[in-house]
């Protein structure tokens, strides 16, 4: 698989002093991977996302997209942003139009699609995400979960190569979390690269191909979920709990190999042992 996004010695600071929100970030993300970013509040996940889309300009270090160094002039930035879509943590910050339809058309028109093409794509995405029931409502009359779905539609319709979800489950009820996760699963099946920040260890363990751990603006580990969640030192450092599956498995099993990947596998394992 090709590397799609890469950072080398990336530093970023919101102020001019040495108070870095991102410190010496080195990581690479391969095409089609499912990446979960984890780390305490204020550890720099959202800041990292804004750097990826070229909205924040790093103080030091370089970002590479498809092995090409990102250039910070207008044309290149617009091109980059058409390839990397961000679904923001707070939908109210993202949705600025009066109606859902207008909102979804905004990105497409910016990409230079004609009116007919735009209408076609907007209608399509409304159908795929199954949001017809509220697409005639004004934005401010939507519920939080509905706003989130519109925010996702906004980005999906632009068909980016990488989709970044900043805490997709924030402030959603279980039903809406499920809806959002199903959408994400559909995307990854189609080979999109999905990067997501989340605090949900169970979900990250099951879903992600790789987990990147942030602590105080630094990447302290990038590895497979199983390696992260069995490494007690990094878990302690970032205040992360172990996923339930691992906890349960470790409590009934002494030799710590062949961890189950999800609840289903754990269930088979337990059933086999009970026989």
């Amino acid at each position: 698989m090709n590397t799609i996004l890469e950072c080398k010695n990336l530093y970023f600071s919101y102020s001019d002093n040495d108070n870095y929100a991102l410190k010496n970030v080195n990581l690479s993300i391969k095409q089609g991977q499912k990446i979960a970013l984890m780390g305490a509040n204020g550890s720099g996940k959202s800041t990292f996302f804004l750097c990826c889309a070229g909205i924040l300009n790093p103080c030091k270090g370089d970002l590479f997209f498809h092995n090409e160094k990102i250039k910070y002039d207008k044309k290149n930035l617009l091109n980059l942003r058409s390839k990397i879509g961000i679904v923001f943590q707070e939908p109210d910050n993202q949705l600025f139009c009066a109606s859902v339809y207008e909102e979804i058309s905004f990105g497409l028109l910016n990409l230079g699609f004609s009116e007919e093409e735009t209408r076609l794509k907007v209608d399509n995405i409304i159908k795929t995400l199954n949001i017809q029931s509220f697409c005639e409502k004004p934005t401010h009359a939507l519920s939080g979960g509905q706003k989130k779905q519109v925010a996702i539609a906004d980005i999906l319709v632009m068909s980016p190569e990488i989709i970044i979800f900043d805490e997709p489950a924030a402030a959603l009820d279980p039903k809406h979390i499920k809806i959002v996760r199903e959408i994400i699963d559909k995307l990854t099946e189609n080979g999109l690269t999905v990067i997501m920040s989340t605090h949900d260890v169970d979900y990250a363990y099951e879903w992600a191909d790789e987990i990147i751990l942030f602590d105080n603006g630094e990447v302290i580990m990038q590895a497979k979920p199983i390696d992260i969640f069995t490494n007690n030192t990094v878990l302690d450092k970032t205040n992360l709990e172990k996923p339930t599956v691992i906890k349960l498995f470790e409590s009934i099993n002494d030799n710590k190999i062949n961890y189950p990947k999800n609840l289903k596998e754990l269930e088979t394992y337990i059933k086999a042992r009970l026989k």
Partner: protein
Amino acid sequence: MIIDKLSYNSKLRYENAEVKFAFAVITLLICVISRSAVIALIVLVVTGVLTIKSGVPVFRYLKFLSIPFAFLFLSTIAIIFDFKPFYITINKNVVFYALNLILTSLSAVSCLYFLAFTTTIMDILSVLKKLHCPKIILELMLLIYRFIFILLDTAYAISISQKARLGNINYKTSLKSFGMLGSSLMLKAIKRSQNVYIAMQARCYDDTINVLSSKKAKPKVKHIIMIALFDGFLLIFSIWSKFFL
């Protein structure tokens, strides 16, 4: 915001916006230019009935009309009474003039109410866009419309949290709380605008806001004919009454 709720629950919401807009504006112009009490009465009744039929409760509609009415009433008092030294006089002609003024203004307002109660802001904006209204004004209207609601929500949440901590226990504290609400709302608005700008940039925003509104119903010939007949009648009647009455 009750007007907004009424407009997107209106039975006429999905009718063609340009037709509604044309009806409201042409009728309003005829009303204002003709300055005839009879025409004003006809328009008041017709737009009133239309608005109420479209789903606005009668009582609520009258309440909405009473707002400009109170305003008009107070300002016409100054016209009706003539203050001379030692006398206050009333002239019959002036009273009729004032009545005429009140009726005309009310009917003009009722035309606009018809538009506001049956047409959503996004439809009105799309009509204005077709009329080549300056882009910057349309963008401002769009953003203001959206963020009024967010600011209202935020203000409501802040005031609740102040009340929960006894921020209104006495007059002095509630004044202070209100001041703090204002200042924190200001800060939040600035922060919010930065965040929205960031999110817009992330979607390739390039200095102009381009959006498409959903496809609207085609104008119905029946409605156009009815409007043409109505406004034509008003026009002929007003010309006739000007010259022959």
